[in-house]
């Protein structure tokens, strides 16, 4: 690889990191809107998440565009599509059974095996595809895609480890990410879900801390089981299937990489 090519590659990496960082920042704002909504704005709690439901698809589009610009070759794309298909098949299988969600462990393992960018793309695309199949397209979808993308993204950024330590790390991450995913989704749609007539309802006038307090109580009471179920499912599946799946993914990752196709000069006939 020439220095020029190496320079280009670093530049591309830098661009991608920039975009992902921006997506993270925007996502943080979008998910935490109940913390800064004020009554003075005249926006009701029921329409507030819809404002960012407009912004997030564009953010996702920007990230996916940057991801695919010259980076997604046929092999990576086919792998992305096929793994998203696996997730799409797994998601309806598990829907409705208290938090028994089969899709996240795959996103985590793929993010670990193929890197943060792949993990992000897989998370977002898997949730999108399964929404298409299960007719789950709605204002919540951009939030789900972004959150699942982050689950895959951070899986790719975990520190180095191998063997049992790696599995323990991933299982731990599975637990943490399951809770964070659940809290983010619940938080941004909590005012939407509960309405505004109860004592645990979101109250724009009450200030961020009071609202956070209410949310924690409401979430503990209603969604703890779901989040815990999701976390346990992740940990269990990673513990059981993590090792062989990682082996499988890495093996085909090696196969899929262009093993520097070399074309030598014509061999001289003897």
């Amino acid at each position, binding site marked *: 690889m020439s220095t020029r090519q190496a320079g280009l590659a670093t530049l591309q990496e830098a661009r991608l990191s920039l975009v992902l960082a921006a997506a993270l920042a925007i996502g943080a704002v979008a998910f935490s809107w109940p913390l800064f909504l004020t009554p003075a704005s005249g926006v009701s709690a029921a329409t507030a998440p819809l404002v960012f439901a407009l912004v997030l698809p564009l953010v996702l589009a920007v990230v996916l565009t940057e991801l695919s610009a010259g980076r997604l070759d*046929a*092999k990576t794309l086919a792998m992305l599509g096929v793994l998203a298909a696996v997730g799409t098949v797994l998601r309806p299988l598990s829907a409705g059974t208290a938090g028994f969600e089969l899709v996240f462990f795959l996103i985590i393992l793929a993010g670990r095996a193929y890197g943060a960018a792949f993990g992000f793309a897989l998370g977002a695309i898997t949730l999108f595809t399964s929404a298409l199949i299960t007719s789950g397209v709605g204002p919540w979808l951009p939030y789900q895609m972004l959150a699942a993308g982050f689950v895959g993204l951070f899986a790719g950024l975990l520190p180095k480890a191998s063997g049992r330590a790696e599995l323990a790390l991933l299982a731990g991450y599975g637990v943490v990410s399951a809770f964070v995913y659940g809290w983010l989704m619940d938080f941004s749609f909590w005012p939407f879900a509960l309405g505004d007539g109860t004592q645990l309802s979101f109250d724009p006038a009450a200030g961020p801390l009071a609202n956070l307090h209410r949310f924690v109580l409401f979430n503990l009471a209603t969604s703890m089981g779901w989040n815990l179920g999701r976390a346990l499912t992740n940990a269990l599946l990673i513990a059981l299937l993590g090792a*062989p799946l990682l*082996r499988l993914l890495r093996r085909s990752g090696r196969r899929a*990489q*262009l*093993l*520097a*196709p*070399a*074309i*030598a*000069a*014509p*061999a001289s*006939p003897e």
Partner: protein
Amino acid sequence: MITFEQVSFGYPDAVRPVLDRASFEVAEGDLCLVIGPTGSGKSTLLGAINGLVPHFTGGTLAGRVLVDGRDTAHFRPRDLAEVVGYVGQDPMRGFVTDTVTEEVAYGMEQLGIDPVAMRKRVEETLDLLGIAELRNRALIELSGGQQQRVAIAAVLAARPEVLVLDEPTSALDPTAAADVLAAITTLVHEVGLTVVLAEHRLERVMHAADSMLWLPGDGQVVAGDPAEVLARANITPPLAALARTLGWERVPLSVREARRRALGEGLLPSPPPLAPREVGDPALVATGIEVRYGELVAVNKVDLRLHRGSVTTLLGRNGSGKSSLLWALQGALSRAGEVSVDGLDPRTLSPAQARRVVTLVPQTAADLLYLPTVGAECDLADRDSVVPPGTTAALLAQLGVLVEPERDPRDLSEGQQLSLVLAIQLSAAPPVLLLDEPTRGLDYQAKAELAAIISSLAADGMAVLVSTHDVEFAATIGERTLLMADGELIADADTASLLTSSIAYAPQMAKVFAPAAVLTPADVARWLA
């Protein structure tokens, strides 16, 4: 059109190269047949034509590959899309979209062809391959032959000059294979395409070949006239075996050619009239077998007896209910009717017990393999079958497969996978063995070995039922043949009389020497005296 100059290719960690200084040319407008045993590098050679080897696969290529004057070293496969159309082994696995027209249009979308021109080309291409009536169908619903034709249409829409096909008919029944091959020969003769085609079952296609590339397996490529190459090759379709038997220098490429020559030389084998078959004790008795899928009756009131020490062949179209019948006999499928093996009905037994009574090797045998190594598969089979450790591994060796126990079963060839599954299933020592379409993807050598294995199993007293499309294979194994159509058994007779009296199912030897009832070149040699 295609020129290979001193082409060598090897994977980084491989011991020997797949191709070793191969040089040959394929002329424009030829139908060029690539032959060679499994693992001899046919797929590599085909991939090298459009640059998938090495751009996509990795590895090191030395020498030059020129296609229509372009050196594949400087063109990526995608840049050759309108020069070379490449169709892989299983069309369903290569489809990107899910309906026929979208799949045909996909390649043109990539090339950025104007939508108006694209619409026209899609229609023309559909007509060219006779699949216009399938236009809006979902790809997954199509039959194998239809899928294969859609795959060909999908690459043809980019208007390539060369069409490369990797075993396009290996998974098809004879009728579907004939459809696909007819479409291919039309493309050669009417459109003037250059076609390079790898194929195991040469008897289907060798009559149409203009030239032939033979890969003996050591990295060499022997190019030449089909009749001459076949005379030297270690690949023996029935007509080549016949030529060898009769000492003909030139291998006849078609039944017509062979028949003319045989008649001209006054060769007429005279087999003795069939002696009545000796029938052993019935090992399996089935009565009134019926399998339904909702409205569809797949198997309709079939009565069947399989005898100890005998091989029975089950022929029939795709969808005639052969697979359903086998699955129902094994007890893995719910059905009406009675099955009795020594008084036991496998349907009422647990799966572990059932496979010790009747065992089935399914069509895609690899479905039974899921452990990471061959050794682990063998150990599990030993435990499942409650036999001493090492039994399955010994069986595998008996079947002629010697592989390291650390190998991943997925990396084995289809023949080796089949043997591994067979060894696993035989470790339970069942009295009845059912084989569903075992010759898929096997070369002549592997088929001959399989036929020998089946005969020896029968000689040991097992009752074997083999369902197959491959009449040449059927001709070599069983003394009894069943014919199934529309869910019913419509014929049950001696193989020789049933096959020779049929047009659709007659093997080539029977056609060459009709009306003499000979099935294989070995028969010819035996009865010609």
